[in-house]
């Protein structure tokens, strides 16, 4: 999945791109988003979230991400280790800092903001 086409495919990265991505790009390093989606079994919410996430990744992050789907029913220990409370939760482990996006990811814009791929005025705006 590793790719170096980061800059070219990053939307609006030239103007107001979020810092972490921008600085990483400036150094020319490959910025791979390491994503984890935590679900609890095959619940409708989990399935919707996974579907939404795949769509967003395909549209905005082609080849620039790694995704693990973690089923906490099978590995409950990870819920504590990774501080998961809400289900479903999408965690961006890399680049730092960690970002968490909870919910079924139905709001693409919010997901992009949450992943720090979109400029935003207020990250907690609701």
């Amino acid at each position: 999945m590793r790719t170096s086409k980061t800059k070219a495919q990053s939307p609006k990265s030239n103007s107001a791109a979020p810092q972490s991505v921008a600085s990483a790009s400036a150094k020319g390093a490959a910025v791979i988003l390491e994503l984890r989606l935590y679900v609890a079994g095959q619940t409708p919410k989990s399935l919707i979230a996974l579907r939404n996430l795949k769509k967003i990744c395909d549209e905005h992050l082609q080849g620039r991400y790694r995704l693990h789907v973690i089923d906490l029913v099978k590995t409950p220990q990870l819920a504590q280790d990774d501080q998961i409370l809400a289900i479903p939760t999408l965690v961006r482990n890399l680049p730092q800092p960690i970002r968490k996006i909870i919910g079924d990811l139905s709001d693409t814009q919010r997901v992009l903001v949450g992943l720090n791929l979109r400029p935003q005025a207020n990250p907690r705006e609701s």
Partner: protein
Amino acid sequence: MKKAPTGIAGFDEVTGGGLPAGRPTIVCGGPGCGKTMFAMEFLVRGATDFNEPGVLMTFEETGEEMTRNVESLGFNLQTLVGKKKLFLDYVRIEPSEIQETGEYDLEGLFIRLQHAVDSIGAKRVVLDTLEAVFSGFANEGMLRAEIRRLFRWLKDRKLTTVVTAERGEGALTRHGLEEYVSDCVISLDHRVNDQISTRRMRIVKYRGSAHGTDEYPFLIDNKGFSVLPLSGIHLDHKVSAERVSSGMKDLDVMLEGKGFFKGSSVLVSGTSGSGKSTLAAHFANQTCVNGKRALYVAFEESAAQVTRNMRSVGIDLGRHIRKNLLHFCAWRPTQHGLEMHLLRIHDLVEKFNPAVVIIDPITNLISANIHEVHGMLMRLLDFLKERQITAMFVTLTANQGAEEQTEVGISSLTDTWILLRDVELNGERNRCLYVLKSRGMAHSNQIREFVLSRNGVRLLPAYIGAGTVYTGSARLAQEARERAAAVVEEQHLENQRKQISRKRQLLESQIAVLRSELLEGHAAFERLSQQQKKRQGLLAEEHAAMGKIRGLSSADKAVTS
């Protein structure tokens, strides 16, 4: 109803066995009120004393922080974790790094709890402070539904749970958690009166169980959380007819000659320097002489000072201390709040098991709030009475004014009240003692003079005349006056006796004279009558001779005679 003992000193007594087993309980209160300590002790004692492993889920403090916090109470969380008696899970909620997009639930929390419970076979759960989830998630409707589900979940798994919650404005908890928990709600409170803090606990609700509804003081010290339940709901102490000597013969005499009832409470009140402590020391001394133990709690003087001072009235307390019969505690009254003092006394009583407890003086504990002291004393008295321990409280009264008024609050709790008073007269100050009340005995109603000497204390009957009690030199003067008067009286009597005896002698001599006169009269009369008889005899003889001469017959003789 099955109950899960908390192991918290006093709490299980108040609730009749502990928290509702297999159900959730809310412990609420303001910041720093001891919610977490309560929850921690519940968990740790459960793991160590009742073999019920527990899960601690914290939302505000990490496991390490929590471990350090409770180290001071002697709880070693890491050891318990190592023994699989405890499971720590810190739930970190960082709103700034969370973005909400669409629907979600808190299934993660359930998974974590389930995992924790399963991995050690937990029976107890603490959620400290669950409400923190409200700051992390925006969807309140979802949160409330999830919390409701959580409590259901806990109940279904029969987990005895303590959920801590912040106090809210005008409500028990900030987020109204109490509406989801219908079984047991405990409110903790921490307030400061006169710079001394008091912690209180109240059981707001305990479904299906009788419980005390009072506010119980509690404290958190190096042994953990303790509730002071001492005032049992019932007033049914054992009573004893056994008597204990006060250590002063003269005082015993005033109490039917036998002293106090065992297990009763004695209040000794008086102005400063009236000999209260001396009286208390006598009592302590007597107890130890009888081979029983006495606990002496001094709030004004150190042990050494009391020992030295009492030597001046011939009491050697030092030897009792050496024999471990007398235990001295000298504390500063301001050192702790009332509860702490009470608890320390408690602790000592438990450890030392005395027959007598003396608190000298209790006045120093009385700050502005007489009600609290009243409550504390009541609890202490209840506790001591239950154990048949005789208690003596010393109180200092103001020099002026009615002593009886100022202590109404305390005196009504005690069985015997001894009042010491100063009497100022003739340029000196003397001590008086009287027994104001003594329940259940015909005590003396007299005022006695209380005299301290090198050989101890003596109570002398005071002279009472014309509304005045004579004490000290006035009494001595009075005694001298009476002695002088007695001498005069004696002399007067002697004089009278002499006079009478003289008069008697006189009369007796007169009687003798008269008697001799009388005898003389008698003799004269006798003589006269004999003379007459003689004369008549002679006359008759003459007649007879004459008749013979004239030759008359005997018949004529008769006529002539």
